[in-house]
């Protein structure tokens, strides 16, 4: 849009992204791979942080993801509306070795279409791809559990040690066809090897209507249209900032 000069042009555009998917499909692991380029074989459920941020550089722009993990609130279908609020992107994760997780993913997509901002960019991610790939020795050089053999055997991918690995339960074509029909981006990923993870977040970034977000954060459109938390804060009060400045600490 034309008014780029007046805005806080040094700041990257903030994009709220939410994760959804059945328990243990690897939601937190995918984020951890994207944000810290790590993988923890025995990742505890939930992630311990309110949200993680990660910049994503495209050819012509930088955007800053604010990534919200479900923190287990989805388990009894008790996600708060706040979770969906102002989310411009969502990654719905399933496990390629578990057919029921795709069904669950479909129901989350429906839920998003019902609850979330209508312009939300949704990506479907079939995770744990490493488990169904023939284990070529060179393939997963990035996250070698090799130096900690104990961990390696404790991994859910322990079948991997037996080479025959876990059978694929969701064919790529099936998930892809569903994604196409529902208008979703589609990737197969492995949080363990990192395959597809950066691509997933980069492609989402490309599809996000940044101009729209910029325009609405600038002035008027606060409701309805996609406007991130960053945008809302620009017009409102930032409790932390002013609190830091306030020197007369008369805090109860």
């Amino acid at each position: 849009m034309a008014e780029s000069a007046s805005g806080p042009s040094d700041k990257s555009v903030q994009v709220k992204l939410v994760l959804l998917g059945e328990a243990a499909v690897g939601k937190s692991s995918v984020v951890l791979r994207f944000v810290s380029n790590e993988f923890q074989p025995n990742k505890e459920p939930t992630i311990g942080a309110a949200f993680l941020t990660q910049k994503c550089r495209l050819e012509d722009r930088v955007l800053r993801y604010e990534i919200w993990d479900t923190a287990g609130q989805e388990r009894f279908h008790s996600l708060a509306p706040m979770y969906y609020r102002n989310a411009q992107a969502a990654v719905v994760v399933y496990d390629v070795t578990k057919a029921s997780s795709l069904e669950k993913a479909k129901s989350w997509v429906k839920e998003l279409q019902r609850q979330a901002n209508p312009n939300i960019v949704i990506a479907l991610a079939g995770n744990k791809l490493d488990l169904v790939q023939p284990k070529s020795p060179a393939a997963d050089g990035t996250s070698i559990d090799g130096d900690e053999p104990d961990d390696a055997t404790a991994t859910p991918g322990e079948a991997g040690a037996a080479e025959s690995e876990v059978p694929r339960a969701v064919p790529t074509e099936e998930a892809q066809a569903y994604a196409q029909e529902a208008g979703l981006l589609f990737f197969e990923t492995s949080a363990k090897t990192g395959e597809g993870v950066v691509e997933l977040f980069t492609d989402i970034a490309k599809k996000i209507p940044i101009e729209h977000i910029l325009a609405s954060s600038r002035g008027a459109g606060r409701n309805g249209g996609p406007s991130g938390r960053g945008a809302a804060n620009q017009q409102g009060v930032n409790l932390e900032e002013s609190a830091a400045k306030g020197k007369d600490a008369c805090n109860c």
Partner: protein
Amino acid sequence: MDSHFQVIILGTGLAESIAAAALAKVGLKVAHIDTNPYYGADEASLTTKELQECLNRATERLDQISRLRTASVRGEFPSASRDYSLSLSPSVIPARGPLISSLIGSGVARYGGFKLLESVSVYSSDGLKSVPGSKEEIFRSKDLSLIDKRKLMRFLMFASGEFESSSELRGKETMDFGSFLKEVFSLDSQLTSVLACALALCKSQCDTALPALGRIRRYLRSAGRYGASPFLVGQYGGLGELAQGFCRVCAVSGGTYILGRDILAFESKSESSSGSEETKNLRLKLSEIPEDLTADVVISSINYLPHLSNFPQTETEVNLSTTESHSCCIALVDGVIPRLSSYESAQATENDSTGEPVEGSSEEIPSRPVDAALLVFPSGSLSSGKASGPVNVLINGEGTSSCPRGKSLLYLSTTTQNIDANEANNPEQILRPYLEITLSLLQSPSGEPLRELSSAFYIKSSPTLSDTHLASLKGKGIFVSPPLPEHIAEAGDAAASIGETLFRDVLKQLGNPDADDVELWPPLPPGLDDDDDMI
């Protein structure tokens, strides 16, 4: 699911949610349960559909775990249900106080957006007057005579100081606040009523001096922290959204959330063997959850107590008495309410934090719509009105993200002693005249008329429980979270204080000897979510 928890919390009201977050953060295993399908309990922020369902249940008195009663609805609620976040506990938050501290300490401040309350205005038969909130504003005021200014200045000096030990107050602590102002500061009845209703936000004419002065001092000290206004308004319906934020903090620390299930059974085993302490002494059965949940300690919102006592195993007779009730109205309005003269305009508007062009420093800023403002009808100020105490009207515009563009919300409330569900003093009859006059007063002279789209009226009761009851429940490991005070500026801070008390009580009960010294919010991990690495 591993179904034993150290703490089960019943109710997702703000106080319980704050306790839940703090308890989970110190590493306790928490299950947080609400029988309603939404977060926030009596402080919830609801879509129009949720509000309607909630009020229907209140009217039919279906076994509902809530303090709402006697609801009536006029007009059709807009079908775009999610465009609205309607608050069951419309509130302003003092910029200094336990709630703001908890919001910052817990990190919940980062989830929510906040706006400054733009103004407090008082109704009188000659219209609306904005209330000076600071010494500067009193100087500037055109409505006050020089002599009144002096008296007011003297009073504000007094109220912002350490009045507890002053000779002016000695022996008059429990005097009603109005009489105190007249007697000690020789203020006339009009000023007295403005100070009592709009500065101290008294709920009735018989509010006593000491607490009223305490509120004024806190509000005076709140001014200037984030702007001229002492008060903030939370976006997306305020306290309900904040409750969701604290629940998320709890969940992120491993808390389990179960909403919308019925309680099928509750059992508290009375202390049998005095030897072993770690007994799973509380047991809860929920619909659609196959396993029973057990806990060492239960925190229960007062709303759940009558329900729990339905189960004979509890051996807990619960006798709630209702001392106070409140008539409430939520009105959805078609049309934009222009800004009233505000804190901002009374002070020379410097560094407008919005980043939008600052519209001069003129006194009137007619073009911008109201984000949030408060209007007070002092007792008896409206001849056609029958409210026995002051009536508060909280105005929310599009800027609070709680209604769509071009629409506004009005929240009316007033305290009513011992209200009955009978025709004569139902909430609609009490509040209707105030709603009508508010709509006509807020009308912008040039713009489209404000039109009431739909409105909901209901009663919110404030049950209490005797100390002996509370003690006997405590003996069983059940800690009761009392209802929040129905006070527009006090509910949030009270929730934070109650939440902290519950947190410490539970730690003590679980055998932590340092419970009083544990930090409510341990420092947030620095930089965890501020990773600037590029990918």
